[in-house]
Each structure stands twice: as C-alpha cells, then as structure tokens.
C-alpha cells in the first residue's frame, strides 16, 4: 500500500537516496583518508601528504554536509507529501461512507486513523529512508572498504558482524511482545484515570474511592512490571554490542601485532580497520534500536489500510429504476420493509408499510429504542433494507444517488449537531447561497430572529465547538432552521422538538406548517402534544407499527398510545376533576 503512495514521489525518493548515499560515502571516506595520513604522511614524515589528505578530508566534510542537507530537503517533502495524501484519501473515503459501510467504526477511531496513524506512518517512512537505509549502506560500505584495505582483517569483521546482528535481532524480537504488554497496561491505567476524572461525582457518591484506588494500583503494578521486564531485556542490547565490538578490536590488534612482525600490514591500515569495525557495529546497534518501529507502525498501517480498502457497500442499482414508471408520483412508500442492524441483528423489525404524500403531515410516536429513528435512517438510505423496498417519487431508492435522495428529503436529525462558526455559515450549510433575508426569515420561524437581532454580531454570532454557548433548545431550533431553508419535497423532523418548551414548540410547528403546506412532513416524537395534529399517527413499539390513525381514533383503540397519553396527561385530567 505504501509503495503505491510512494510512487508519486519516486523522483524525490531517488534524489533522497542518491544524496544519502553520497552522504554515507563521504562519511566513510574520512577514516580512509586517515589511513593514508598515517601510512604516507606520518610514518614517512611527509607533511605535504598530511596537508593533501587533510584538504581532501575537508572536502569530504563539505560534501558530507551538503549532501545531508539536500537529502533531508527531499526527505521531508516525501514524508510530508505521503502523509498529506494519506490524510486526504482517508478523509474523503470516510466522509463518503454510508452508515452501513461505516459500521462499527467509532468516530474516535476514525479520527485516530486520519491523524495519529498517519503520523506514525510518516515516522516509519522517515526512519526507513533516513535511518534504516543509511545505517545499512554504512555497514556494507564499511565492510567493503575494510576488504579493500586488507582482506584477511576484513574477514574477521565479516565473521563477527552476523553474530552480533543475530544477537541484536534476537533480543529485539524477544522484547517486542513485551512492549505490547506495556502499551496495553498503560492504556488500561490511563483509561481508569480518565474515568476517575469524568466520573468523580459517581465515584464519590457510591463511596468507591477505595475500590478505584485498589483497581488503579493493580493497573500501575502491571504497567510497572511490564516495563521492567521489557526494558531489562532491551538494556542488554547496547552493552552487549559494545562488548563484542571491543573484543573484535582486541582480536584485530592481536592479528595486527602478529602481522606487523612479518610487516604484512601497515599501522594506518590497522587504525583504519579498527575505526571501520567500530563504525559498522555502532550502526548495527542503532539499527537494532530502530527496528522496533516496524511492529508499531504495522498496527497503524493495517488500520489505515482497513479504511482505504473498505468499499462502499450501498451501490446505486440502476437496473431497479426501470421497474417503476410512475416517476411523476410524489410520495415516499415503505413496502413490507424489514431490517435489523448488523452484525448481530439487533433492533429487528419486519413488515413496515406506510406512505408519505406531498401536502400531508404524518407522525410517529413510540418509546426509546422502539425503532422510529431507524425508519428515518432507512429512508435516507444510511442502511439498505433487508426485505421489501422503499420507493421515493416512484423510484426504488436503491436506484437513486445519495445526492438525489438528499435533494428530495430533508432530514432534521435527533442529535443536534452544529458546526463551530457563525450562525450564517451554519444556516448556509442547508442552502449554500442563502441570502441574509432568507436566513432571517427562517430564524424568525424558529422564534430566534429576535435573539440574534439583539446579539451584537447578528448573523456573525459565533457558535463555539459543540455549540456549548447555546442551550439544548436553541441548538434544536437552529438545526430546524438549517433544514427549513433547504428546498425539497419531504421533511423529516426526527424528535427535534424535545428540548423546546411547549409554547415555543407550538409557535415553531405552526410556522413550519405554514411554510411547508404543500410538502410532505414526517414528525417523529415522544410527546403526544407534538403529534396530535398530524393527519395520521403511526404508533411504533418494539419494531412494529402497533397502531395507526388520527389522534382521536388511536385514543380509543390503541393500548400503547393510551399508555403514552396517561403517562403525559394524567395531570390535566386530575385538574379537570
């Protein structure tokens, strides 16, 4: 997956790798020049040679810095570029998903994937291109140069390097699973602490201070032990490699001594070889410390991939559009609709039949969790029906694009969500080119025109994140206004009067009725007062329609409806007595 993203930047990556190679080469050249300084300069007391090689070294240093700078310049663009592309693709993918496709992904995991996981991947790319690559070629380069200097000595290095490499990898792989234990323990501990903060009243009210402290102590103990275990293993790595490096040097010195007697090696070569050996082992040590990033990044990559490869399950089925020809009809019809939520088939319901025509007001009432909102979700094609079909203006909604459905039906959702920004911007999310006059008109309908007229900023009134500067009722009304400014055939009000007091609700509903007199309206509510004026009321209980008719009819015949009335109206009756 990453390769695909990297392709776009292949020129820059090649550039980066090229200059990184130059950087390593110049770095490797410096000890090699030192060999010459000793062998040709110092030993032959030739100051010219020293100056010559010294200048070359200076040159190498210059090349070294410049190539490093250039490679970093390319590198940062590559990593930032790939992050940008990943972020963009994730974001666009996610906001295009239907509810059905989104399934069990929570908002917080999607945010983590779009922001934190991408960050982790960019660290991985940075490490691979900057560190892993240069470390590897440094080791290889050091060995090659050693061979060029002296084959026999280099062979000693070559023997010991795999041993150390093997040891390093072994230790790291042994420690890695322990790191995931740490991660888990720390997550658990942090979660406990966070919940203590958010639930402090409950903790105190139920005298759970000691209990929480006990549980927290357990969590910290686990975190402590996991850390000690993992770190103790990893702590062995660097001293061990250093030890081997030192032993290697000693062996080389011994071999050097033996060969010095027979004059088959120069001092400069010996010194140079020792330096290359140190360099190679040092790089292996760094390498071992860095490879821990791979398993950590793999989690992130997998999570990103999971999002990017998840295809939209709700496809537009063109073939179905041919089935019906009454495309002039203006109505939404549910025909034998059956549905349950994936994956465990919760909230099951079957055989839902009803229709909503233009110019009609229909209402649904029922308990929490009875399935009312699910009906709206199906209507908006957030999910596909499992049985039966839903027709919208004579066409099966499966044959319509989401844009089209959204143009025909305006949904005013149950949970009021407002963007942070001005009130004008928020209303304009309903209608992009709405003029101030139009906005004032809808604000007046929801009885908030005066509120904003009195506000200093008027339509520039700033709504904070999560609309914390507005009350629940105000939020609901603004959400209604944003829906009202849209132009469509049908309007669905999903339990969005619940936070309004009775008199305001009445005024708002009257205004809605006036404006939308020729449209189809579906009102979903828990209050009888909200639904009683509707042309037809559907009573939903446990996923089925248990009664339908006008308020007067239902009052007489529908048991559930009667119970709802009693729960809300007992007071009025008592007063009548």
């Amino acid at each position, binding site marked *: 997956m990453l390769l695909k993203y990297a392709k776009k930047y292949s020129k820059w990556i090649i550039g980066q790798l090229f200059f990184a190679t130059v950087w390593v080469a110049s770095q490797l050249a410096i000890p090699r020049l030192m060999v010459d300084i000793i062998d040709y300069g110092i030993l032959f007391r030739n100051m010219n040679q020293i100056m010559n090689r010294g200048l070359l070294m200076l040159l190498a240093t210059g090349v070294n810095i410049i190539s490093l700078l250039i490679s970093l310049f390319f590198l940062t663009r590559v990593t930032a570029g790939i992050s940008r592309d990943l972020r963009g693709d994730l974001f666009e993918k996610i906001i295009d998903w239907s509810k059905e496709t989104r399934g069990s992904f929570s908002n917080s995991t999607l*945010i983590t994937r779009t922001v934190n996981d991408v960050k982790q991947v960019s660290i991985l790319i940075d490490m691979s291109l900057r560190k892993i690559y240069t470390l590897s070629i440094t080791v290889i380069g050091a060995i090659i140069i050693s061979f060029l200097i002296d084959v026999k000595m280099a062979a000693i290095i070559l023997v010991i390097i795999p041993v150390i490499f093997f040891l390093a990898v072994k230790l790291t792989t042994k420690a890695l699973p322990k790191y995931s234990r740490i991660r888990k323990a720390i997550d658990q501990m942090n979660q406990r602490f966070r919940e203590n903060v958010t639930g402090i009243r409950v903790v105190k009210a139920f005298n759970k201070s000691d209990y929480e402290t006990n549980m927290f102590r357990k969590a910290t103990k686990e975190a402590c032990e996991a850390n000690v275990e993992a770190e103790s293993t990893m702590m062995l790595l660097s001293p061990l490699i250093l030890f081997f490096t030192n032993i290697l040097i000693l062996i080389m010195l011994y071999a050097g001594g*033996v060969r010095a007697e027979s004059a088959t090696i120069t001092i400069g070569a010996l010194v140079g070889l020792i330096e290359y050996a140190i360099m190679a082992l040092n790089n292996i040590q760094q390498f071992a410390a860095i490879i821990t990033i791979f398993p950590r990044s793999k989690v992130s990559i997998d999570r990103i991939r999971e999002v990017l490869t998840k295809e939209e399950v709700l496809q537009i089925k063109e073939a179905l559009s041919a089935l019906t020809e009454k495309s002039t009809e203006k109505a939404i019809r549910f025909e034998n609709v059956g549905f349950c939520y994936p994956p465990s088939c919760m909230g099951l319901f079957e055989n839902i039949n009803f229709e909503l025509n233009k110019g009609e007001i229909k209402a649904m009432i029922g308990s929490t969790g009875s399935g009312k909102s699910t009906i709206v979700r199906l209507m908006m094609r957030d999910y596909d029906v499992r049985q039966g079909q839903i027709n919208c203006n004579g066409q099966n909604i499966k044959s319509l694009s989401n844009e089209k459905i959204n143009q025909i039906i305006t949904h005013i959702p149950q949970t009021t969500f407002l963007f942070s920004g001005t009130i004008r911007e928020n209303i304009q*999310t309903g209608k992009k080119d709405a003029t101030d006059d139009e906005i004032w008109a809808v604000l007046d309908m929801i009885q908030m025109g005066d509120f904003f007229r009195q506000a200093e900023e008027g339509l520039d009134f700033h709504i904070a994140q999560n609309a914390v500067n507005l009350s629940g009722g105000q939020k609901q009304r603004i959400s209604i206004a944003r829906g009202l400014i849209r132009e469509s055939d049908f309007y669905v009000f999903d339990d969005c009067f619940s936070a309004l007091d009775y008199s305001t609700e009445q005024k708002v509903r009257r205004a809605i009725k006036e404006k939308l007199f020729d449209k189809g309206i579906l009102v979903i509510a828990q209050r009888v007062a909200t639904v009683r004026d509707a042309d037809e009321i559907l009573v939903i209980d446990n996923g089925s329609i248990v009664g339908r008719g006008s308020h007067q009819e239902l009052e007489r015949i529908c048991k559930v409806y009667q119970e709802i009335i009693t729960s809300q109206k007992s007071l009025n009756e008592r007063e009548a007595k």
Partner: protein
Amino acid sequence: MIQEPDRTKEKKEEGLPGISRGAGGAGRVAGFLASGSAIDNKGTLLRLLKYIRPFKWFFITAIVLTLLASGAQIFIPRMIGNIINIITSTFQKNITLDWLTFRNSAIILIVLFIVQFLSTYFSNVLLVKMTQKLIRSMRNQMQEKLIRLTLKYFDRSSTGDMVSLLTNDLDNVANTLQTGLTSSLTAVVILIGVVIMMFSIHDVLALLAMVVIPISYLLVKYLVKKAKPIFQRNAKFTGHFSGQVEEIYNGEDIVKHYNLGDDLKAEMSVLNEGLYESEWKSSLVSFLTRPAGDLILNANYVLVAILGGYYVISGALTLGSFQAFIQYTQMLRAPFNQVLGILNTIMSALASAERIFSFLDAKETIQAGTGEIDISKTLGRIEFEQVDFGYTDELLFKNVNLKVNPGEQLAIVGTTGAGKTTLVNLLMRFYEINDGKIILDDRDTKQYHTDELRKAYAMVLQDTWLFSGTIRDNIAYGAAVSDGKDLSEVSLEDIKAAAELARADSFIERLPAGYDTVLTEGAANISQGERQLLTIARAMIKKAPIIILDEATSSVDTRTELFIQNAMQELTSNTTSFVIAHRLSTIHDADRIIVMDQGAIVEIGTHAELIGKGGRYAEMYTAGQL
C-alpha cells in the same frame, strides 16, 4: 465554517495551568531552550529527588556502577593506544613484538571490557527498576489525590489537562529519570574524562578540540530559536486540522444528508495543503541541528588529524597517542550531542514535574468528620439551616432554609442556573458550605465522615457516567463492595432485580451478550435513554434511605418513565427523595414542589397549591416551561 482555532479560552483560576499539548517534542524543546523558563527549577528538582530517597541504595549503586562504566570507557582508548604504540615500534624499528607488554595490556583491556559491560548493564537495570517503582508510586499518589480533591478543582480544570498530567507529564518525568539520568551522568563523566585524557595527551590539540563545544552550543541554540515559530505554526496547523476532522466526523448525519461532502473535501484539501507545508518545513528545521553539529565535529576531526599528524612527525606525539586522541574526538561526539539534548529534556521534565506537584499540592478543603452512619436506622430527615454557599467568592445561596420530612418526595424546579443541582451537590457534600448547617436526622452533616454520609444517598445524575466494562459491573458499581474485593462479589440476582426495577432488563436481555455486554468508553454503544436506565439501576441496587434524581429520566420516554416511577414508589415508600426535573409529568406527583430562582427557594407547595397561588410556578406552568 472553517474557522481559526479559538484562542480565547479563559485562564482558569485554581485549576491546572494550561498545558501545551500537541506541540510535539521538538516544539516543546524549542520553547524551553529559547525562553529561559521562569519556573522554580531548583525547588522542583529537590522535591523530585525526595522521591528517590526510598530507593537511595538503588540509586547510589547505580551511580557507582555508571562511574565505573564511564571510567572503563575512558581508559579503553588509552590502552588501545598503548598496544598500537607497541605495534608501531615493531613496525618502525623492525624488531619482534613486545608480546609481554602486549599481553599485559590485553589483560587490562579485557578486564576493562568486562567491567564496562557488567556495570553498564546492571546500572541500567537498577535504574529501570527504580524509576518504574518511583513512577508507580507517583501514579498511585496522583490517583489518590484525584479521588480526594474537592469538586471545585474539577470544575476549574479540564478533563484533558488532568489526564494529560498522568499520560504526558508523568511519562515525560519517567523517561527523563530512566534514560536521561544515566545518559546525562555518563555523558558528563565521559565528557570530563575525555577532556582530561585529551589534555594529558597533548594540550594544544586538546584546546583545539575544545573550541568546538561553545561554537556548536551557540549554533544549536541559534537554530532552535529560529525554529520556534516554525514549530509553533506546525503545532497550530496540526491541532486545527484534527479539530476540523473531529467536528466533521461528528457531524456525519448533516454532512451526508445535506450533501456537504464535496464542499468539505475542497475546504479540507486546502487545510491539508497548509499542513503539508508547515510539516515539511518544521521537520526540515528540526533536522538542521544535526548537520550543523556534524559540520563542526567533522571539521574538528580534520583539524586534529592535520595538526596531530604534524606533532607526530615532529616527535611531540606518539602514533598510539595520536590514534587514541582521534578516538577521543570521536567519543566526544555522542556525549556532546546527548548533553545538548538532555539539557532540553531535563528542563521539560522539570516543567512536567512542577505541574504534577502543583496538582498534588492542590487544596482539599473538605474536612471530613469521623461520625459513622447506620443506614438501617437513618430516617432521612433533612434540614438546611441558614445555608450560604457559592462556587466562587460570589454567593449563590444566601440564607437558604429547608426542612424535608422522612419519606417525603420533593420535586425541585427552576430555570437553568437556579441552583437545583447545587442543592444536590451540597446534600452529597461534594462542596463545603460557606456558612450555616445541613442536618441529617439530628446531626450536622459535618460531623460525619464524608464516606459515611454518602452511604445514606443513592444518586442518579443528569450526566450518565458509565465506565468501560460490562453492564453487569456497571450496575454492581452501586452496591457496597468490601475492601480489596472486586465487583464480581455482587450477585447476579441483585443486579437483575435492580435492572428490572429500572426497566433496563428488557433492553439488556435483547443485547446479544446480555449482562456481559461490554460498554465502550463513554458507553457509546448504547443510546442515551438506555444509559439513563443503567444509571438508575445502579442507584437502585444501593438501597439507600435517600434518593436523589437529577434529571434522571430526561432522555427516557414518558411511558417508560411512568413505569419506573411506579416501581420506585413501591420500593421507596419510606424513602426521602429529591427529584429535579423539567417535565411536568415527572414532578406533579411529588409531595411538595420547591421552586428555585437564582439560588433562592421562592415557593414551596403541592402542584395544586402553587397553581392556586399564581406565583412563579404558575407562571412557568402557563408559559409551557414545564
């Protein structure tokens, strides 16, 4: 819709000082290097050292071992230099090698290697154990503090900031203690040792090598200062981008159903582009210190090579010493970079420690009495006697008086901010009253231990807090659990009975895993109404003589609410109850209704009485506010 991030957050008094999050390590470091921080570093450091006291033998041993290891490391190049000298003289004078001296040096070297290996390893392990234990005790201390703090503190600090103390700040301290401590010690010892060794080899060369230190320090400092605005800009862009993503994902329904997708894609792609720019610039800048340091060290290496070569030729230096010197210059590189880095991490860790300490020092104003309570004998008579209270210096309650009889059902109504929840907070003694008395049965509540007092109350709050765990455990949470036991102690029968009373049983049993269903964080996998039912069940299982319901059924439909009320009435015929509600249906059956306004009780009476009186309540009633 896409706005500049809101920067107008008020500074909260008495709460946590603002914590810059998301600024990223580099940004943080930059901040500390560039601006001499004004915190009391010395005091914080001393206090932090106090935490080490219980582990002082660990610590001292670790330091001794570190010194040993560093000492070995310093002598190793010197010994290698000796061997090279032996080889050189063999080479130059064409004589046989002095194997005896070689062997002796080699033996010393091997001993040094072993000393270095063992002491490094064991000092590291000791330090890991010490820091982990130390951090654990700090963590425990923080949690205990958290539980003891008054709610005033919570009102003034954001959740994120408090959690960040444990996650970011304590981690920061832990990392610095664990790696920073050893590496800074090693670095300093080696730095000093190397300098001494260098001067003992050749003073002019050593001076030349030293020049590097101030130059690179100044260079790095200059770069970091220059980089600060770039880091800050990147942090701001990152924060802004994630903020927008979060908002858009949360507004999923509107985004989808109002066809906002394309517009948002366009807007976000602009933001993403900006983030790209700031990201590559800031990471480039953060890498820049490296080439800068390299340049100086490499240049230094070259100069030493040339000048050193000259000295060897002129006989002022042996080849072995020259080689040792070169190794020492190389050795300078690592500790030098480390010291630079560590200085920053230590400063940042001290700042973190300071925040933790200020949290640990926060006042706990509630003075708990020692009185115990026997719930079976508690009648539930409550009296407020001339109570004054305010969240800030400004009083909200002035001279509030109220008598509640045992078994009475009291409804509390009033607009937002009238003081309804405050009344509950005071009953539970979440806050300390400024003046007056609150009496339970015949005793001033101040005489009870707060834990004892709270045994008398079962409470359901508007805010439906549930922890991540099974439904079963969440309900069991309301029951008393003996010391050291966990929630499995509570029997499933009790849990089911409580769920039934709260009418939560039917929805729980419809879930695939039933009572073992695991709630995610924030219980996002069930609806708000269902969450309320669970919190009611949790209160039901407590069987307390006094019940407090603060908007407990606001998200439950009225029909279900009625069922719950009936069930509760059966259960609690002799329980005193306080019910805060907006809905008329919830309050009309109460024995008495209290109407509150701006912290004062303005009316008391039954529904009929209050309507008849034609006061505030009647006004609210006719205005349809109930």
